C-alpha cells in the first residue's frame, strides 16, 4: 500500500478516536449551546439584539477551538499516557505525510463537532439554504487548521498535562478576549491593536460577519489563511522535531 493511501486511514483513525466517546462530542455541543443561548443571548439583552447576532459565530468558533485542542491532547496522551508514539512512527508512511494527515484529521474532527453549530449560525445569518453555507464551513475549517497546528506544537513541548492545560488556557484567552468576538478592534488600546489584528479569531469572525451582511468573504478568508497556515506549519515542525531520532 502506498503512503498516500495511508493518509485517509490516519484521518479516519483520528475521527474514530473522537467518536470513541460520543459523550465528549455531546458535551462540546452543550458548551456551544451555553455560549450561544446563555452568554450571547444575555449580552444581546444587555447591549442590543443586533449584538447577539454579532457575537453568535464566536460560540461556534470557540467550540471549534476546543475540538481542535483535543487533537493536541490526544497526541500528548499517545506520547505520555498510552505510549503509542513509537508504534505510530513505525507505520510505513513518511513523518511529514504522517503529521500532515494528523493535522488534516484534526481539522476534520473539528468540522464534524461544529456541524450543528455552523448550521445554527448559518440559519441565524440566513445562509442555511444558500450555496454560501459552504463558505461557513471553509471559515471553520481554516480557523481549525491553525488551532490544530498550535495544539500539536504545545503537545510537543508540554511534559505534563498541567503544562499543556495551562498553555491551552493562555491561547484560548488570547483567541477569545484579544479578538473582535465581543468588541471592535478600535476599542482596544493602540498598543494591543496589532495583537488583535493578527488574531485568527478576528478574521474568522470578520468572515462570518461578511456572510451576515451578504458581503464578500474573500478578503477576511485570505487574511485568515496566513496565520492558519503559519500555525499549522509550526505544529508540523514541532511534531517532526520531537519525533526526530
Amino acid at each position, binding site marked *: 500500500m502506498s503512503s498516500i493511501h495511508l493518509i485517509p486511514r490516519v484521518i479516519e483513525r483520528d475521527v474514530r478516536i473522537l467518536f470513541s466517546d460520543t459523550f465528549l462530542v455531546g458535551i462540546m455541543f452543550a*458548551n456551544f449551546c*451555553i455560549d450561544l443561548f*446563555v452568554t450571547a443571548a*444575555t449580552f444581546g439583552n*444587555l447591549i442590543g439584539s443586533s449584538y447577539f447576532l454579532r457575537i453568535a459565530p464566536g460560540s461556534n468558533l470557540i467550540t471549534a477551538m476546543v475540538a481542535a485542542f483535543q487533537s493536541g491532547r490526544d497526541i500528548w496522551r499517545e506520547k505520555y499516557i498510552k505510549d503509542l508514539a513509537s508504534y505510530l512512527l513505525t507505520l510505513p508512511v513518511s513523518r511529514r505525510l504522517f503529521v500532515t494527515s494528523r493535522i488534516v484529521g484534526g481539522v476534520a474532527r473539528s468540522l464534524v463537532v461544529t456541524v450543528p453549530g455552523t448550521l445554527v449560525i448559518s440559519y441565524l445569518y440566513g445562509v442555511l439554504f444558500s450555496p454560501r453555507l459552504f463558505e461557513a464551513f471553509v471559515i471553520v475549517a481554516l480557523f481549525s487548521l491553525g488551532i490544530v497546528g498550535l495544539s500539536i506544537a504545545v503537545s510537543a513541548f508540554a511534559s505534563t498535562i498541567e503544562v499543556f492545560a*495551562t498553555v491551552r488556557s493562555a491561547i484560548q*484567552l488570547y483567541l477569545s*478576549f484579544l479578538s473582535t468576538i*465581543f*468588541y471592535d478592534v478600535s476599542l482596544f488600546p493602540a498598543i494591543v491593536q496589532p495583537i488583535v489584528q493578527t488574531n485568527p479569531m478576528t478574521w474568522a469572525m470578520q468572515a462570518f460577519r461578511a456572510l451576515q451582511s451578504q458581503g464578500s468573504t474573500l478578503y477576511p478568508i485570505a487574511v485568515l489563511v496566513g496565520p492558519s497556515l503559519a500555525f499549522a506549519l509550526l505544529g508540523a515542525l514541532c511534531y517532526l522535531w520531537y519525533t526526530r531520532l
Partner: protein
Amino acid sequence: MSSLTTRVTNSSELWVPSSSSKLLLQIARRDIATLFRTPWIIISRSLAFIIQLFVFAYLISGLVLSYPDYFRYYAVGAVVSTVASISFIIGYDIFEEAEEGLLDYLLTLPIPRREFIIGRALGGAIRAMIYTIPMFAIVAVLENFANPLSLLGATLDLFLIAFGVTGLSITVAVTVRSANRFDVVLALLDLAVTRASTALYPLNFLPGYVKILAPFSPVTFAGDSTRAALTGPSFDALSTAGLLAFVVIFLGLGATFYFRRLEGGVYA
C-alpha cells in the same frame, strides 16, 4: 498532582491526636499544600481572571448602557465565579488519587472517615479562598470596598460557596468513572453553574429560560449575597440561607457518596 504524602519523622506522629479539629486541619493542610505544588493551575487561573477583568469587563462595560456601572457588577461576579471554579479542582485531585492508588494509602491513616471527608472538603474550600483573596483584594481596591464588616461578610459568602462547590465536586468525582468524561462533566458543570446564575449577568437581562433556573443556582446565592454585603446597605438573608442550604446538601451528598465508595456501602 495529588501524590503528596506527609513524611513521618517521629513514630509518635503515627497516632494522630484524637481531637477532631486537629484531624480536620491535618487533612485540610495536605490539600492546601497540594495546590501550591501545582503552580500551573494558579498561573492559568490568575491570567484568566486578569484578562477577564482588565480586558473583557473593561471593554464590555463601555458597551453596556442599559445597566449602570456594569464593570462593578461584573468585577464582584468574576470573584464569585472564580472561587467556584477553583473549588471544583478538589474533584480532580480525588479522582486522580483513586486512579493512582493513593487513596488506598490515605485510608490506612489513623483518621476516622468522617474527619477525613470533611477535612478534604475544608481543604478544598480553604485553598480556593487562599487563591481568590488576592483577586478579591484587587477588586476591593478598584471599587473602593473599604468597610471591614462588608469585606468580612463578603469573605464569608465566598467561603460558603467554596465549601459547597467542593462538596459538589467530590460528589461528581466519586460518581463518574471515566477520566475523559469526568474532565468534561466537571468543566460543563462549572460552566453551567456559573453562566446560569446572576454572578456575571443581572437577572433581568438573562434569557427567559435561564431566568427560571438562575435564582436557584448556588452561584446566584453567593453573587447576590456578596454584592449585598459589599454594595448594599442590608444583609441578604434569603441568599445566605440558600447558600447555607447548598453547602449542607452537597457536603452531605459528597460525604455520603465518598464514604460509600470508600467503605462499599456501609455508613458509620
